[in-house]
């Protein structure tokens, strides 16, 4: 068993136990309808979480994603509503814009060696500001295509259905998982997050990888904006406020190391689902207020960060053990299992 999967296993346990707990409390919780709603309601966060996982795996952070959602919905509403652009063309335009913006941030981060935190923070201000300048009002989107897209569903047993936006999220998750764990790009991202200098010495194309990571994150944020506009049928400059924090929290709860270099894409998906589960629990309960969501997420964040910290210390101790002169005490611990390897 690979020890790098320990946080992921912890996440799976939290999700399963949490779901069972909810199912025991409420009669209709363990139905496909609840699961499908969980997927639909959290589709836009799930999509960003895929991009955010790449960013965090590489040791960076992206605070601009929430603003990009808002900007995308506003631009879509104006393009489709006022300028009568074909929605498909509008979709393509916002995706290109998003990707280019992310690439720009990645380039600044790499070439000027600035902390990703502050670069994406100013990106967040800039994009949110642009969205406000375009419109401060919430603009409805009435294009028939939006209704058609929302009607595309896969009917599942139990009288519920899998919506298009949930399918989009699952497809993005699938592609993201393959990209992160089975391609050279994914390996480069892990290498970059593990140790930037070593990665550079090993010949990892740092510049290309960094720029691609932020371009991908912003591209997915723009896609998430499209999904969000389908979900709400409106464009609003205040949309997606605080989403970046929910996403980062989901990625951390999903077991990705915030210092980079270790984690799993599926964990981030489960992190999003755990956050969704807390919200669903609160709406099922009906007496609890929504602020408990924030406190519960805070507590989970603390637990998982504590777990990560503990594991890092244990790994560091194990990694340094063999280099010491062999002593009788160290031997049994080493013999207990295989060396930890990168996932």
């Amino acid at each position: 068993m690979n020890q790098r999967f320990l946080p992921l296993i912890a996440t799976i346990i939290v999700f399963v136990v949490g779901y069972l707990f909810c199912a025991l409390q409420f009669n209709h919780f363990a139905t496909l309808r609840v699961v499908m709603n969980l997927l639909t309601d959290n589709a836009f966060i799930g999509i960003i979480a895929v991009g955010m996982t790449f960013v965090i795996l590489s040791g960076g952070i992206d605070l601009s994603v929430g603003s990009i959602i808002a900007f995308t919905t506003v631009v879509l509403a104006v393009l489709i509503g006022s300028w009568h652009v074909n929605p498909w063309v509008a979709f393509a335009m916002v995706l290109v814009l998003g990707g280019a913006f992310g690439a720009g941030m990645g380039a600044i981060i790499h070439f000027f060696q600035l902390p990703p935190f502050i670069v994406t923070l100013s990106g967040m201000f800039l994009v949110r500001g642009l969205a406000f300048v375009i419109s401060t009002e919430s603009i409805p989107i009435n294009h028939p295509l939006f209704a058609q897209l929302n009607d595309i569903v896969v009917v599942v047993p139990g009288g519920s259905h899998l919506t298009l936006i949930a399918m989009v999220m699952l497809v993005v998750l699938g592609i993201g998982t393959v990209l992160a764990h089975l391609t050279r790009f994914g390996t480069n991202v892990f290498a970059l997050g593990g140790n930037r200098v070593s990665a550079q010495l090993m010949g990892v194309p740092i510049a290309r990888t960094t720029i691609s990571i932020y371009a991908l994150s912003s591209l997915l944020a723009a896609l998430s904006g499209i999904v969000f506009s389908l979900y709400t049928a409106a464009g609003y400059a205040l949309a997606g406020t605080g989403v970046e924090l929910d996403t980062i929290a989901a990625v951390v709860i999903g077991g990705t190391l915030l210092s980079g270099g270790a984690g799993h894409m599926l964990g981030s998906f489960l992190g999003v689902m755990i956050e969704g589960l807390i919200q669903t629990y609160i709406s099922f309960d009906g007496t609890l207020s929504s602020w408990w969501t924030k406190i519960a997420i805070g507590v989970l964040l603390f637990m998982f960060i504590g777990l990560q910290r503990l594991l890092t210390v244990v790994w560091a101790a194990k990694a340094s053990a063999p280099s010491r002169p062999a002593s009788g005490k160290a031997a049994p611990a080493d013999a207990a299992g295989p060396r930890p390897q990168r996932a």
Partner: protein
Amino acid sequence: MTMIRTLRSFHGATQVAVLLAVLLANWLVFPGFFAIRLQDGRLFGSLIDVLNRGSPVALLTLGMTLVIATGGIDLSVGAVMAIAGAVAATLTRDGQGLPVVLAVSLAAGLACGLWNGLLVAVLRIQPIVATLILMVAGRGIAQLITEGQIVTFVNPQLSALGSGEFLTVPMPVVIALGMLVLSLLLTRATALGMLIESVGINRVASAFAGINTGAVIVAVYVWCGLCSAVAGVIVAADIRGADANNAGLWLEMDAILAVVVGGTSLLGGRFGLAPAIVGAFIIQGMNTGILLSGFKPEFNLIVKATVIMIVLLVQSPAWRTFSLPSLPSLQRKHPGRTVP
């Protein structure tokens, strides 16, 4: 080298110049900008307004500067403001006197700071992550205190902290100045400031030099928590109520921006409290200027983003290697370096 040293001795001169430029620009778009009048024993005018409205961010900036100087960051200052404001409003509504209200709400800020400090110093969690926990959970805690409502109160004594005046100067400005003086005394009249810079430059080396790095780090987060609580109480006193959802929302970003504009590196090390405070007023000056000039307030964010990027690019290592070789005195210092 002497030139660099002379420049450094005027640390903060740039910030003051920028502030003056911003204020002059405001005067150009609004001729009555510098007009100050005395009415009912209190100063009024746009300039006073900039100082008054900039005070909460200035207070946050004091704590944030010290935290950033140790190489950390505190994302939770806005949430701590909300908690302190919620505590102050709830206690006042329940009929507690001013001393109790102040003591408990400031203690709440200290406790928040202690929590952050212990996570960073003892558990050694990255500061962004450690303070993210309180940033997310803090607003929930504040709403727990106010039970999800906007708590309003009637208490002239507490309100005076937010909207009163002392010797004609608005109270928030007086409090911010007082905290600045206190922070300067604590860091510059003692060795604490040097220890903070030392930890920020190299924590391991500082530990080997005999500095109790953990205590220094906990101390700066506790101070940051206290400053945030003071700002939270002032804001609550000003609006005579506590809004757990919106009090201090996004102010952590303004405070970080003020520190960056104030010339303190986000990587830690050398810090300047006074320039950072000037940075906070530069930001407020720009906010007021945008409003006065008749632009939509929506441009605020774009202007902030542009300023932050320019300051960052000029401070960045790549920019320095690009521009430094043009200084002849430095070229001699590095004979091995080839000019690009």
